[in-house]
């Protein structure tokens, strides 16, 4: 009896076989090959040298600018996304606006990459429509006053276009979960709107907000297409560096590319770990 039960148990795991084989072949093995490659030198012998090369000035700089870009766009996206989400969920606006905002956010968060870069070039590039209008209507020379779409802040402005909608989609359930009774209770105890937010609303939302921030951080950190199409590789982001490494070997050392990629995976792992622990914390309030 126990034997047939064990057999049945093994049989039920067998049903996962095809998918697991596929995932191992095209997800796990490639990841492991990066891990292995980053501990090897050109001739395949074990070494830590690749990680020592990560300390090179230009590589440290590219990690720093990628982390800054991800943090800045995640922060802007988190704040603005939460405000817009709160406005349409609980701000007393017409109901249709909420479903419109959610649908639009679904579209906009998928509108990344090459077409998004083109849209911003047509809008705020050197000959972009808004650039030209600002000059002819208000006499403001955007590029003369230091703005540049192909710079850090220009890229940030573009990234927010897919960060903010992702925030709206991510935070909406938590904002829906803010119960009206809590506000009414604090108001009937004499709390002002500020007190309610500082002592009740924000403390409840904080884990969800932080989790969403980390999700957005990872979303920007792994992005390649938008930066590739917009800056053409002028900004030294880690994904761009890895891409250049695979395509043309600018670093003259393929194994350094593996170490770069592994660094990315480690940062993403830390992010996802933080994210899931914060999600657990946030789920206490959602019922």
């Amino acid at each position: 009896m126990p034997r047939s039960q064990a057999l049945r148990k093994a049989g039920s795991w067998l049903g996962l076989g095809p998918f697991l084989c596929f995932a191992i072949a095209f997800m796990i093995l490639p990841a492991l090959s990066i891990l292995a490659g980053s501990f090897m030198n050109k001739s395949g012998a074990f070494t830590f040298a690749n990680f020592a090369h990560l300390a090179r000035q230009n590589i440290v700089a590219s990690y720093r600018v990628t982390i800054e870009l991800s943090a800045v766009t995640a922060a802007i996206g988190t704040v603005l996304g939460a405000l817009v989400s709160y406005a349409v969920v609980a701000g007393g606006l017409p109901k249709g606006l909420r479903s419109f905002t959610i649908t639009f956010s679904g579209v906009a968060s998928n509108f990344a990459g090459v077409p998004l870069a083109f849209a911003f070039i047509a809008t705020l590039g050197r000959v972009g429509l808004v650039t030209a209008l600002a000059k002819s209507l208000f006499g403001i020379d955007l590029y003369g006053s230091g703005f540049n779409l192909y710079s850090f802040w220009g890229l940030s402005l573009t990234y927010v276009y897919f960060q903010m909608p992702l925030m709206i989609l991510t935070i909406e359930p938590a904002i829906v979960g803010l119960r009206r009774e809590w506000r009414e209770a604090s108001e009937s105890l004499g709390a002002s709107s500020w007190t309610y937010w500082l002592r009740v609303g924000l403390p409840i939302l904080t884990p969800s907000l932080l989790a969403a921030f980390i999700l957005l951080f990872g979303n920007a950190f792994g992005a390649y297409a938008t930066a590739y199409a917009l800056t053409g590789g002028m900004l030294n982001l880690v994904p761009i560096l890895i891409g250049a490494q695979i395509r043309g070997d600018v670093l003259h050392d393929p194994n350094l590319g593996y170490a770069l990629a592994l660094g990315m995976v480690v940062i993403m792992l830390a992010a996802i770990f933080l994210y899931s622990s914060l999600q657990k914390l946030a789920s206490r309030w959602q019922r």
Partner: protein
Amino acid sequence: MRRSESARKALSWFWLALGMLYFFLPLVATFLFSLKGRKGVLSFAAYANVLADPQFLKTFLFSLEMAVFTILASLVLIVPTAIWIHLKLPKAKGLMEALSLMPFVIPPIVLAFGLIKTYSKPPLVLVSSPVLLVAGYVIISFPYMYRTIDAGLRAIDLPLLTEAAQILGARWTTVLFRVALPGLRASILSAVFLCFATVIGELTLAVILAWPAFGPYMALVGRDLAYEPAALSIMSFALTWGSIGLMQFISSRGVARRGRGHRP
């Protein structure tokens, strides 16, 4: 009290208006910019140029083909697996959740790197085969695919329906084709549209694996021309809007129908 409510409303309008300005200004500007293809007049010349380029159709059809293969492969791999887990192996849910986080941990650029490294030397050389591209796309869209199907399965309570069908004498093929799949129709359709939107303009894997897909084609056009990229951007936005909009329409209708059905 009243005043605080109207103040909240005014603030809400303000933030929403700011958000809308940020989202619609680039779209409107890009659209107007795309109409400037012919000097002095507004015209659809840039669109005509794009459509007349044989490379446009060629790369678009290539990406379409890849999207179809990706969708088929994902459905064949993920739908039966998700059904199996709900029916026979609820224990594996944690494993699948963990796996579905993996594509987030391994961004497309790193995945492409790993795929090249793994499949460019024997025993299995796949770098020159579109199979590798499709496999990569299946991995990239797997989290969204799995979550959509999983949510659909949660909503129909498959174990209960299966038990009912089996009591009535249904075989497992009948259960699969007459119970599970029809119940999942809305989520499968949403997953299909989401998958399509992901693959059709994808750049990273296509560029790194060197395929003449639609994403790399768009990037190339952007390097040489001024107004055509704006036209491509608008067309691509319309495509995204179409597929994601349809997806959300289908899933919201599915939920509404199920919601009514469950009410006692």
